[in-house]
């Protein structure tokens, strides 16, 4: 903890906006009360989450050191800041940056804070937030005060609240946009921040704004509230509005948002969000976290009932001047440039410059001006780079810079004639990485580096792929250069693997008696069209073989694609079965542990791999068990379900998804009870009794959610399937199978899987 915390409090006294100052003082008191045991652990956990102070890996005070799980001897190891969360364990601070908009002064403060309170790195997240890691809880009020001094809050950055309102980083300057969504995003962000109607959710709630429907920038389809700018002509006059979709989300089971209103007028943006917040707070699931996102309420009710309830609620709202008072100004708000417009030299004889211009520079709709994307490897940058970026932004613009959901920055309003000079200063600061938005610009969630739920090292993999691609990317076919890669450390999809051409998410498997990090390969997602399609997993491949898998996929694509065929269309035409076949040998012939120990560790981490920092099972060199055969069968069946879905055979897809779950459940039951019949009722009953009621199956973080998938599928076994129900069931089946693997691994580690296994 910093020695200067009280000094900052005194120094900033009276200098912060009154409401922010009061909130931070309150949070500081809550920290003190928790220390004294006067606030319940769970309540304090949600309190700090709503202030952006999030847990980090190892904050339960345990860490696997490569050989065994060890206690981390924190000085204050009795007191906790949440259930199972040691007080002194470092955590993360998430900082909300509405629509990613920042100014040079804010960048400078970030640089100072990263140096003084974190590990020196500022991280841009996939929701345009910034994040610091390895922060002590006692320092968070000071961090918040110093942020508040420059108009930034961490309030509601985490927890069951309205998260950062995201928006196109090109708003106001994009040639394709209908109009600038910035003022609307800002207004909604301010309106919902701390709003009493948005305080009682069962889960988080994510809004976004997009300037057009054809690009990916706002990713409207994967948000709880997605606003896409649109215009129409009425009586010869142009009117602004939004195509408004609701109930989208990624997470374990992704959901495309549903159309709520084809043309929502600006004056309804805020009140409709308020009405939805009230309906969600009142009717959304509260007990079962895994069913508490708004998408589940939509799924239960259907869009028509949802809309009916919201419109009813809307009628009951009392008028609020904030709904409309920003609109007049919004219509006329324009950012101004610093320098006069100019022509941009496409090349200056420097190959690095030419590459950078090609991918990182985009013309604005304002003639003679350009945006420059500052591509950040894995979204990370140093304090020196932040200060350089502050200087650069001030030198070339009136202070307009934005973070992006691709974990980059975008500098706007750069005069064409300034582009070569901009490249020079960015290069000096190590900020002129080329390849923005292409295959090199890999997005990754924190994964096992810092996330408590991480299964595989998403950042380790992304760094490795980036290193390999750096050497060859610009010699690759343009079609391959244009691909997007996104990596998540687990099925929760914070790396947004569902909406990339090629996605990966972490899973683990037992190989020769050892746990081995793997990634599921997810193909067919679409970043364009505001996250227009979600990919599906096709096969789990050992982590160390993913670079080979990527080479295979890209080679296969180049060899088999039709002229100008985009990757998503290619995957649809060729089918996942063929692609999987091309990858099949990567899942076989795994080396023995002693022949290649590196195969049994993850990228960037020399420790022998272990999930949840639990030591590996003792039984090395086992024979293939009945369990393993059955699980291979379950994976085959769920894969076929996807193929049926792709072919439009929804009934077969749904039935196979359920059959895959039953096969996996039976595999687990048979470890304890060999004679279980092939009868769904008996399998589910036995599974419930032996694994659910005994809590053996409960996931340490997700609880019983995966078992609920099986129970729900069993209850609805006779239902007929639609596109709306078959796809989520396949996703759920996939997750259930992963949960069976995890349960089995936990049991092995605890020595509970010996009864009939291998007999």
């Amino acid at each position: 903890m910093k020695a200067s915390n009280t000094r900052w409090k005194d120094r900033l006294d009276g200098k912060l906006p009154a409401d922010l100052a009061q909130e931070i003082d309150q949070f500081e008191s809550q920290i003190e009360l928790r220390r004294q045991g006067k606030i319940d652990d769970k309540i304090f956990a949600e309190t700090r989450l709503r202030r952006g102070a999030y847990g980090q890996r190892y904050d339960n005070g345990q860490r696997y050191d490569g050989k065994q799980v060890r206690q981390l001897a924190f000085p204050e190891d009795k007191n906790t800041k949440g259930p199972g969360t040691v007080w002194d364990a470092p955590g993360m601070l998430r900082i909300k940056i509405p629509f990613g908009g920042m100014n040079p002064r804010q960048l400078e403060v970030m640089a100072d804070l990263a140096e003084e309170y974190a590990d020196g790195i500022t991280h841009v997240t996939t929701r345009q937030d910034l994040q610091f890691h390895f922060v002590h809880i006692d320092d968070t009020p000071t961090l918040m005060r110093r942020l508040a001094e420059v108009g930034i809050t961490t309030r509601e950055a985490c927890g069951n609240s309205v998260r950062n309102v995201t928006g196109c980083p090109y708003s106001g300057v994009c040639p394709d946009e209908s109009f600038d969504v910035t003022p609307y995003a800002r207004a909604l962000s301010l309106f919902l921040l701390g709003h009493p109607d948005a305080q009682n959710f069962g889960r988080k709630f994510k809004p976004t704004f997009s300037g057009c429907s054809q690009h990916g920038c706002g990713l409207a389809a994967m948000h709880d509230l997605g606003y896409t700018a649109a215009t129409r002509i009425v009586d010869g006059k142009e009117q602004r509005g939004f195509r408004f979709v609701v109930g989208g989300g990624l997470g374990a089971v992704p959901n495309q948002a549903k159309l709520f209103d084809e043309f929502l007028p600006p004056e309804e943006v805020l009140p409709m969000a308020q009405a939805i917040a009230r309906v969600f707070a009142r009717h959304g699931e509260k007990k079962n976290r895994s069913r508490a996102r708004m998408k589940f309420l939509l799924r239960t009710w259907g869009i028509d009932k949802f809309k009916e309830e919201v419109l009813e609620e809307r009628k009951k709202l009392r008028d609020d001047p904030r709904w409309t008072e920003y609109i007049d100004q919004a219509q006329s708000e324009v950012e101004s440039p610093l320098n006069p417009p100019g022509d941009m030299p496409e090349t200056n004889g420097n190959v690095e410059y030419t590459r950078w211009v090609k991918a990182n520079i985009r013309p604005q709709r304002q003639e003679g001006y350009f945006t420059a994307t500052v591509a950040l490897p894995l979204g990370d940058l140093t304090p020196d780079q932040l200060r350089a970026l502050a200087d650069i932004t001030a030198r070339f613009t009136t202070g307009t810079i934005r973070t992006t959901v691709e974990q980059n920055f975008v500098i706007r309003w750069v005069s064409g004639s300034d582009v070569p000079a901009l490249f020079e200063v960015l290069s000096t600061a190590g900020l002129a990485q080329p390849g923005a938005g292409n295959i090199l610009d890999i997005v990754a969630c924190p994964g096992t580096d810092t996330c408590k739920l991480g299964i595989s090292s998403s950042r380790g993999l992304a760094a490795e792929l980036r290193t390999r691609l750096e050497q060859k990317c610009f010699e690759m076919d343009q079609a391959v250069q244009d691909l997007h890669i996104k990596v998540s450390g687990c099925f929760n999809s914070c790396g947004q693997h569902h909406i990339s051409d090629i996605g990966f998410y972490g899973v683990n498997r037992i190989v020769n008696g050892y746990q081995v990090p793997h990634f599921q390969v997810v193909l067919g997602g679409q970043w364009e069209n505001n996250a227009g399609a979600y990919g599906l997993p096709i096969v789990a491949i050992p982590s160390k073989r993913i670079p080979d898998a990527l080479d295979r996929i890209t080679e296969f694509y180049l060899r088999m694609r039709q002229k100008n065929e985009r990757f998503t269309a290619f995957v649809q035409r060729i089918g996942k079965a063929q692609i999987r076949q091309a990858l099949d040998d990567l899942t076989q012939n795994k080396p023995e542990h002693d022949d290649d120990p590196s195969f049994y560790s993850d990228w960037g981490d020399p420790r022998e791999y272990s999930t949840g920092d639990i030591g590996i099972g003792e039984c090395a060199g086992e024979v293939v068990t009945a369990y393993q055969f059955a699980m291979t069968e379950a994976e085959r069946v769920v894969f076929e379900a996807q193929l049926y879905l792709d072919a439009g055979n929804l009934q077969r897809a749904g039935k196979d998804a359920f059959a895959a779950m039953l096969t996996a459940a039976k595999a687990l039951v048979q470890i304890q009870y060999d004679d279980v019949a092939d009868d769904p009722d008996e399998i589910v009953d036995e599974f419930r009794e032996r694994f659910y009621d005994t809590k053996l199956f409960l996931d340490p973080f997700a609880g019983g959610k995966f078992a609920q998938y099986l129970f729900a599928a069993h209850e609805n076994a006779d239902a007929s399937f639609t596109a709306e129900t078959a796809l989520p069931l396949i996703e759920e089946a996939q997750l259930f199978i992963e949960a069976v693997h995890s349960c089995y691994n936990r049991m092995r580690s605890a020595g509970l899987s010996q009864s009939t296994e291998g007999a």
Partner: protein
Amino acid sequence: MELQHVNVKVFVDGELSVDLYRFVEFFHEWIRDDVLDELLIDVVDYQHVPAGPAVMLIGHEADYAIDNAGHRFGLHYNGKAAIDGSNEDRLGQALAAALNACTLLEAHFAAEGLRFSRTEFELFINDRALAPNTPQTLAAAQPQIEAFLKTALNHDQFTLTHDSDPRRRFRLTVNTATPVDFDAVLNTLRT
């Protein structure tokens, strides 16, 4: 003036001769084998960040990094915990921790020829409230730091250069006329 959160960066002599991933491996060993008398938590690989803290060993009391800020590799010690005692105690604790780490690294990577500079290192205070980078801080801190270094190095043949950029942390570069004997300094600081 209270000098807390003392940081020390000891530069690598010449080019870094060790593959950075070897530091990832070695720092994991430090955690596993309880090499230091302090709580070590995790290792972070930031090799992808240009001129950044390439490999970090995160601890509770302090972080260690093979840091490449300013495109100069060195061992960077960042004292995070507030420490009781005098400024001299705190400066001594940080310098001893940094030199101890350098000694361990040199021994381990002797075959690769890793060597830290004996004539140049940086001292800085990682706290802008306690030590804003101003002429006033320099005037107040410099005599204390000089006195400390005289004792620690056992001579006064050194110069201090102040980085006066007000945005940066208070930082002095120490250049010595004769090579510093790490063992001797460690002995002095530990007694």
